[in-house]
Every structure is written in structure tokens, then in C-alpha cells.
């Protein structure tokens, strides 16, 4: 492997020309993508760029297709660039390819992609996580230094954890959603995958900020996210979400306890924090997210863009057959659940109640943050699972996001940082969550942890052996 690719972006960019950097990435993609299926499209004539970036295929770009991992958009070419893409390009980034994903970002394993699953660089018989599995695999296999993903319930942090890289979801409204194909508008955020916390903070400086094309983007000042990286954690107060962690056993628990000790030794105080409603996060999530998805995905009707059924003869048949043919099983399942939850007679009992429990969860997080600077959990309840292990049991798949979904429901930022390895050599991960717009707190804690442990330096066997 080319040494430049082993380095974080912040170091590599000092050592190679933009042209060389992009060409090196393109060669790495050529070498590894056949076995990993991380990229759906590669821009072989990508312009030289001091920041080579891979972008999840639900973030629209004018120079490549944007399929959302779905047959219904297999030929779609966006007439505009997403705001985050425009900002990256304006700062000298080269978009080298679009990454594989669960269809419309609905999944936790990448197995719901219409174009076949991406694979985990640490063990290609296992999932890379999802839905931004391609982005996480691309960074983990050192094909690119930076990738954008998207989050609705953990879709950046969970695959980053399973692939042993840094995954970050900002505060709701921190990065414009303009050009991110909508899944659940009150939860969706663009997220960032990198090798190191510094790279993540620096990329956020480029893409964060208010955007007139997204009214939900925040006017809160952005910038200087890399400011506190060297400060350490002396005097910081961390809360362990006891209800989330208590039931954990085995190596994930042992790894988490060891990670907490690293922060404690750095001078942080650790306390137990109670968030009683956190155990309901997945139940809330699968009502709220699916209700919003059922409305957002009504735009795919075979009329203005996307697949139109050849079988349809009436307008109603165009809708039903185009959607029936174009969407995969998981997308249909979620649209059905969301439509049900919003339908007459069930709205109050399902959508209304889920929103009220969500409000309670938000309140409990706000209370918890009165006593601590940040909250800690493992990022995932287990390391990467084998491809096929959960495809027959949607509920088991949903529970992969048990530690990540709360941050989306509450709107707070969260970061996943590599925290070591399981006995069979699979990455494990520590999650840190901060209050709204507490990104600097996350990066400060994450950078300290990363410096103390250095797990990001370990390469997957497929690269180490080369």
C-alpha cells in the first residue's frame, strides 16, 4: 500500500501534490473495490484535489449518478450539487466516487443495497454496517482519506464502528441537507467518516454552516472545530448511560470499561447517568423515521424522474407498479409501517405517541447534560456480523442501532472512535455524545482518546499483508 494512504488527510496533504493524491486514491479503489463493492461509481477523470472524498450515493452530484442504492433511481443524474458537495469543491476537494449504501439509507448492514452489499475490509465475509457501509469501508480500506455519509439513526457511526474508523454525526441543522435525498427530515444529517478526529473536525469546518436552501440548517456560528484537539480531558465530566450499558456483557462491555478508564486516567471524572426512556429509542425511531419516510418517498412516483413501469396503463398503475418494481423489500416494509402509523385511526396511538415519548427522551437528555459535558456508550452492541446473519429478521437488524438512534431522535451530535478489537480481530468502538452544538467537546474527547490509544493506526489484514 502507498504510504500516503496510511496517513490521515491532515498529514498526507503536506506530502503529495493534489494530482498525485487523487491518482493514488483512484489506484487504490481499482485494487480493492472489486472485493469490497464500496463504490457504486468512480470518477476516473476526477480533477486534482488536495482533499479526495468519497460520497454516499444519496448525496447528489452533477458529475456522477445518485442512485440511493435503489433500482428506482438507477439512471438518475442530479441537475445540481448538494450544498455540502459545492462547499467541498469550493475548498479544493475532488469527489472521486459515490459509495454503496442500503437502499434510501434504510438498513444497518448494506445488504439492502440494490447493487449488492459492500463488504467489511476487516473480514469480507462480514457486513461493513450501514447504511453508509460503502463510505466506512472506503476509508477503512484506505481507498480515500475522507468520506461523507448520512445519518438517520446511526448510519455513519454504526458502520464506522464496524469498520474501525471515525464516524461523526453533527447536531441536527449543522450541515445543510440540501441535496441529501430525504429519508426522515427531522432526523437526517450528513455525517463524516475519517481515519482521525482531526480530519473529521477540519472537514466539518468546510461543510458546516447555514444554507438558504435548507431552512432547518442552523444560523449558529460554525468553525474552529479543530480548536480544542490538544487540550486533553483533564477536568471534563463524562456520564455513562447506565441503562444502556448495564445489560452488556462479554468483550464489548470489557472494551467499554477499558475505554472509560483511559478517559479517567486523563483526569476526567466519570459518573453514572440515568436516562430511563433510552430503552424505547428503537421503538420511537421506527415509527417517526418510517412515518416521515412514507411521506418523503411519495415523490418517487414514476412521473418526474426514476423508474416508470412498462406494465402500467393508467395513472394509478404508474404509481403502484413503478414503486412496486422500483423499491426493494426493506424500503417497502418501512413505507408500509410509516403509512400505517399515520393512517386514520392509528395516528394518535402510534405517530402521536412516538413523538411524545421522543419529547420525553429529549427532556431526559437535557437534564443529563446539566451534570456532565458528554455521555458515553459503546457505539454498537456487537462487532461486525456475518453477511446474511440478520436479513431474515428485520427487528434484530434494527436493534444494531440501539446506541446510536437516541442522538438522532434528540438532535445532538455523536462521534464513534475506534476503541480496540474483539478476540477475533474485529473493530470495537466508543461513542461520545454532547449537547446540541457541542461538537468541540466531542472532538476534544475523541482526539485525546485516539492519541492515548492509537487504534486508528492498525490496518485491516487485507492491507497489512500487502
Amino acid at each position: 500500500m502507498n504510504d500516503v494512504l496510511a496517513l490521515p488527510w491532515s498529514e498526507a496533504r503536506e506530502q503529495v501534490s493534489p494530482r498525485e493524491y487523487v491518482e493514488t486514491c483512484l489506484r487504490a479503489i481499482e485494487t480493492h473495490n472489486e472485493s469490497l463493492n464500496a463504490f457504486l461509481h468512480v470518477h476516473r477523470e476526477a480533477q486534482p484535489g488536495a482533499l479526495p472524498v468519497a460520497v454516499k450515493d444519496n448525496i447528489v452530484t452533477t458529475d456522477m449518478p445518485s442512485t440511493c442504492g435503489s433500482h428506482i433511481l438507477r439512471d438518475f443524474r442530479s441537475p445540481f450539487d448538494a450544498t455540502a458537495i459545492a462547499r467541498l469543491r469550493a475548498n479544493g476537494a475532488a469527489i472521486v466516487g459515490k459509495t454503496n449504501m442500503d437502499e434510501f439509507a434504510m438498513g444497518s448492514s448494506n445488504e439492502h443495497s440494490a447493487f449488492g452489499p459492500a463488504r467489511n475490509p476487516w473480514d469480507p465475509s462480514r457486513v461493513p454496517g450501514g447504511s453508509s457501509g460503502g463510505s466506512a469501508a472506503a476509508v477503512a480500506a484506505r481507498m480515500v482519506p475522507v468520506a461523507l455519509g448520512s445519518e438517520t439513526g446511526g448510519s455513519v457511526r454504526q458502520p464506522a464502528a464496524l469498520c474501525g474508523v471515525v464516524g461523526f454525526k453533527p447536531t441536527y441543522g449543522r450541515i445543510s441537507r440540501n441535496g441529501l435525498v430525504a429519508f426522515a427530515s427531522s432526523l437526517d444529517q450528513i455525517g463524516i467518516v475519517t481515519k482521525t478526529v482531526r480530519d473529521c473536525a477540519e472537514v466539518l469546518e468546510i461543510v458546516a454552516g447555514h444554507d438558504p436552501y435548507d431552512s432547518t440548517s442552523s444560523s449558529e456560528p460554525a468553525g474552529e472545530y479543530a480548536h480544542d484537539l490538544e487540550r486533553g480531558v483533564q477536568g471534563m465530566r463524562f456520564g455513562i448511560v447506565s441503562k444502556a450499558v448495564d445489560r452488556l456483557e462479554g468483550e464489548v462491555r470489557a472494551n467499554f470499561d477499558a475505554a472509560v478508564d483511559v478517559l479517567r486516567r486523563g483526569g476526567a471524572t466519570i459518573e453514572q447517568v440515568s436516562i430511563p426512556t433510552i430503552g424505547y429509542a428503537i421503538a420511537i425511531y421506527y415509527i417517526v423515521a418510517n412515518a416521515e419516510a412514507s411521506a418523503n418517498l411519495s415523490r418517487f412516483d414514476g412521473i418526474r424522474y426514476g423508474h416508470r413501469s412498462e406494465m402500467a396503463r393508467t395513472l394509478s398503475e404508474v404509481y403502484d407498479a413503478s414503486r412496486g418494481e422500483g423499491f426493494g423489500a426493506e424500503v417497502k416494509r418501512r413505507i408500509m409501517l410509516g403509512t400505517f402509523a399515520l393512517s386514520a385511526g392509528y395516528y394518535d396511538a402510534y405517530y402521536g405517541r412516538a413523538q411524545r415519548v421522543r419529547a420525553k427522551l429529549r427532556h431526559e437528555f437535557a437534564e443529563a447534560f446539566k451534570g456532565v459535558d458528554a455521555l458515553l456508550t459503546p457505539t454498537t452492541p456487537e462487532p461486525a456480523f456475518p453477511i446474511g446473519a440478520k436479513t431474515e429478521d428485520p427487528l434484530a437488524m434494527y436493534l444494531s442501532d440501539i446506541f446510536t438512534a437516541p442522538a438522532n431522535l434528540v438532535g445532538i451530535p455523536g462521534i464513534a472512535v475506534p476503541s480496540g478489537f474483539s478476540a477475533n480481530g474485529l473493530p470495537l468502538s466508543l461513542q461520545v455524545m454532547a449537547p446540541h452544538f457541542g461538537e468541540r467537546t466531542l472532538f476534544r474527547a475523541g482526539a485525546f482518546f485516539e492519541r492515548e490509544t492509537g487504534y486508528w493506526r492498525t490496518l485491516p489484514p487485507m492491507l497489512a499483508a500487502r
Partner: protein
Amino acid sequence: MKIDLDEARRVAALAHLQFDDAGLERMAAEMTKILTYIDQLSEVDVEGFEERDATVTPFRADEPHASLDRELVARNAPSWRDGLFVVPKVIEGNAGVATMGAAASTPPSREAGDE
């Protein structure tokens, strides 16, 4: 919450999704399982918590902006003619579906004469 076949059919019609019989049956079973898990939300005391968040999304000023390039929009359209999306006849009960035919899918770039 048990979803029977009739209920699944009702929801599929609302969602504009076509299923074959086996697919609909499988969907009903999966929805039942997932909703049974979700039903635990009914045990939470939500007294004092409202369905709607108090924060309001601000509106932008209602000023005209440049819109999307029509040529680029047309390129993604399944069927397009004379600057319009072509769809089957909307009012049913008449002779047919004539507008969906071959003439409808001519790419816009070859229609300079129509402008």
C-alpha cells in the same frame, strides 16, 4: 398489534405499492412482529410531553430564485414532450391511454422545432 391481510391491503393502497399475494402476506406478518415490539411505547407515561416540538422552522424570504435547468430535468424524466411530463390519461372511462405511446418519449434535445 396484529396486521391481517385486509389491513395490509388497505395500507398498500394508501402507500401506492403493488404486491403479489405472497408478498402481501409476508408483509402483514413482518408488520405484526415489528408493531408488537413498538407497542411497548404504550407503557411510557407521556403526561406533560407534547407531540410537537416547540421549535419552529424559520421561513426564508419569499423571493424568486433561478430554478433548475429544464434540459437537465428533462433528461431524468421517464416521458417528456414539449416541455411537459407525459402521463397516462388522468380521467378514466374514455377510449384509452393514447398519450403513453412511443411519440411521448422523444428526447427534448431533438425537439428544437417545437420551441
